[in-house]
């Protein structure tokens, strides 16, 4: 039709900008590698198979929840309810285990998915801010948990003979089932994000909601799905935890939502939405878990240092990301 026009804008990004881009996307990975290396040389116990698989197992519960949060944040939202929903899922699973393995699995998933669905509907169709709606969800789920556990006094036990225990306590090739769950879930998550319409729509909604609406994309449906999946995955995380600990611990998950959000942001997902990767989230979760582990290795260190260090790293990483974003734009 017309002769091809070359433009300055299409010129490949400068090496500096590309490096900045890489660092922004994979910054957490660089830090994780550095911490792991340092820890391996500093503590004999760190690099052992036992310790590493322990880290992976411990991280898997957080990771499951963080995967759902990743999609919610990428869509421009936030889900503060995940900590409470996680705990509720655990208690429901432990209670349900008394009525059979299927009850232990389906009850928490059903209830937690429903909580996510309702939150999503109110946010997407009602147009209410996600912060408020999921804050209400946080209170609701925690209240429900206290109601069914006599204000936390009753801790339901998974019967010793229940096959439900196997779910998180079993191993394949020496690696716990929860870790396998996480690997499969994140692989699926990556596929959904990069290779389905839904993934692209999530990013479009988070990046420019008005434009997504005008492009005829199903904005509301996309959000409802994201919150529903987040609820489901939070419930799944709790369920796995109940299976692992063989009980429904009522005090779990307090403040967990903040840890999950930290992991997602550490992984390079923009808190404002529109960009991110699921692999980054996995790295963010591992980074938090490794820090926890390293602090435990230093026996003399008060374990409260863990929160202090995690907070500092979060701040530093976010600051660097912001700075790198401006470098790229130049």
């Amino acid at each position, binding site marked *: 039709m*017309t002769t091809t026009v070359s433009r300055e804008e299409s010129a490949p990004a400068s090496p500096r900008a590309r490096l900045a881009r890489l660092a922004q996307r994979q910054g957490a990975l660089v830090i994780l590698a550095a911490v792991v290396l340092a820890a391996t040389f500093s503590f004999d116990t760190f690099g052992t198979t036992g310790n590493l698989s322990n880290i992976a197992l411990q991280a898997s519960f957080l990771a499951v929840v963080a995967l759902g949060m990743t999609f919610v944040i990428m869509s421009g939202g936030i889900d503060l309810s995940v900590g409470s929903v996680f705990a509720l899922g655990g208690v429901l699973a432990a209670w349900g285990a008394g009525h059979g393995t299927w009850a232990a699995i389906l009850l928490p998933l059903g209830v937690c998915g429903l909580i996510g669905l309702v939150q999503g509907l109110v946010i997407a169709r009602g147009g209410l801010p996600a912060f408020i709606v999921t804050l209400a969800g946080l209170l609701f789920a925690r209240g429900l948990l206290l109601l069914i556990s006599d204000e936390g006094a009753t801790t339901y036990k998974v019967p010793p003979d229940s096959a439900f225990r196997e779910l998180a306590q079993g191993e394949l090739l020496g690696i716990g089932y929860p870790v396998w769950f996480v690997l499969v879930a994140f692989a699926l998550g990556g596929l959904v994000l990069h290779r389905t*319409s839904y993934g*692209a729509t999530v990013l479009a909604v988070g990046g*420019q909601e008005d434009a*997504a609406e005008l*492009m005829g994309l199903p904005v509301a449906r996309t959000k409802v799905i994201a919150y529903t999946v987040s609820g489901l995955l939070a419930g799944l995380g709790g369920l796995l935890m109940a299976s692992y600990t063989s009980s429904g611990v009522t005090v779990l998950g307090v403040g967990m939502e903040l840890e999950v959000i930290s992991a997602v942001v550490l992984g390079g997902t923009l808190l404002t939405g529109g960009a991110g990767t699921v692999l980054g989230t996995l790295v963010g979760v591992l980074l938090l878990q490794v820090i926890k582990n390293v602090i435990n290795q230093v026996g003399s260190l008060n374990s409260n240092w863990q929160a202090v260090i995690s907070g500092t790293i979060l701040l530093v990483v976010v600051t660097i990301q912001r700075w790198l974003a401006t470098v790229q734009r130049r």
Partner: protein
Amino acid sequence: MTVSPAGTAPPPATGTVPVLETEGLSKSFGPVHALRAVDFALQAGEIHALVGENGAGKSTLIKLLTGVHRPDAGTIRFAGGEVAFDRPADAQRAGISTVYQEINLVPLLSVARNVFLGREPRTRWGLVDTAAMNRAAAELVGSLGVDVDVTAELGRLGLGVQQMVALARAMSVESRVVIMDEPTSSLEAREVATLFEVARNLRSRGVGLVFVSHRLDELWELCDRVTVLRDGQHVHTGPMAGLDRVSLVAAMLGRDVAEVAIEGATEFGDTHRQAVEPVLTVSGIDVRNRLHGIGLRVRPGEVVGLGGLLGSGRSETVKAVYGALPVRGGTVEVGGRRVRPNSVRHALRAGIALLSEDRKAEGIVPELSVRDNIALAVLPRFSRAGLVPERRIDALVETFMRRLRIKAASPAQKVRELSGGNQQKVLMARWLCTEPKVFLLDEPTRGIDVGAKAEVQALIDELAGHGLAVVLISSELDELVEGADRILVLHDGAVARELTGEHKTTSALLAALAGGRRRAEDGDE
């Protein structure tokens, strides 16, 4: 979905049955009637221009046609049947594609993603076929003469390229109607030519096109028919051929063609206040794609009017002078001293104040009191070590409320509760507190009732009488003619005419507004 940039012809619509038609379409937003009983008909295989000044209802009509808003009354018929689109997706599925005025794409996603969002090519397993998508996008975008890496993030590309990507998206589906809302505003001449080629190609395939542009020349170049809207009402529909510029502009502005003189304006430089040195001297202001070498002088006590149709660069001119719009070149001097460019702070310090066009978005803080709204601009100057001398501010506010005759129960009343006219006066008071030497007023009387309008006009006169230099932008011809000592008429971002003395008449102004691309001798690049 198959993708074919060249496309196969949709079933050709027959004869004179319009492909898209509205009858008695109305829409109100609160008390504002954005559209009143508008009839509009688009034939298959025509390019139909939709024109009108600010607030004419073009955007509202487009948003009703594309399912963004729903009409309060009236019907829309598409391809023969009545339709009611609940959301943009419905209209798109039915076969109406739209290129919106602001680029409505997702900057963080790749070019290819943006082109195919929501209808990505799939592999056998239902996954997005990235390779096919990139290939198709490259082909589509390439056919528009744009050579970019389609995997690049859209936000990193220039505005013109982004606009072409939006066009590629609209073309990636078979549509029977394509609506283009000011598609050329951010394009270079070369890209405009490509766009026109695409539009004509679509027309030859039987697609009906609605084309909105403020560049009048483009209408004659491209369009078959034109519909004019004014104040939300249908004014005129007819062929472009045989229509002269003055008649079109007269219809847009609501003027009788009979009162328009084709020849009216005269030579430049006929000023009548030579004695005093100008306080504001602007020369060679250049803003990319918007302004081309704007020059302007205002003497103390003088009101200089800026006329021009929508998109001619009036608001951009005052914003550039005020430092709020990045300029590529040119100088602004106040009282003989150069003002640092692109800095609102320095402009303010030099004594330039701007009353912007959109007082809701850029000025008034509705929940604050009259007093606090007025005091906002002087707070930094008045405060000592962070403390605000309450009594001095009270005195100042009282003075200005009296001088500007602001009708409020007390200085403590919330601005939200005031009438539009009084809100405008509060804003003017805020700027006058800074003791400006030059006051730039962008549509100061828009949207306020008749009585308040007269008061604001009287106030402007009074301020000039006290020696303030005023630049007045207005879309109302009478306001410019009566309010301004001189009128500069802008066209396509350059000064085209200057009207002074006896030549400063409504009919001469109208003729000048309609006049083609004649630019000031030294105005162009």
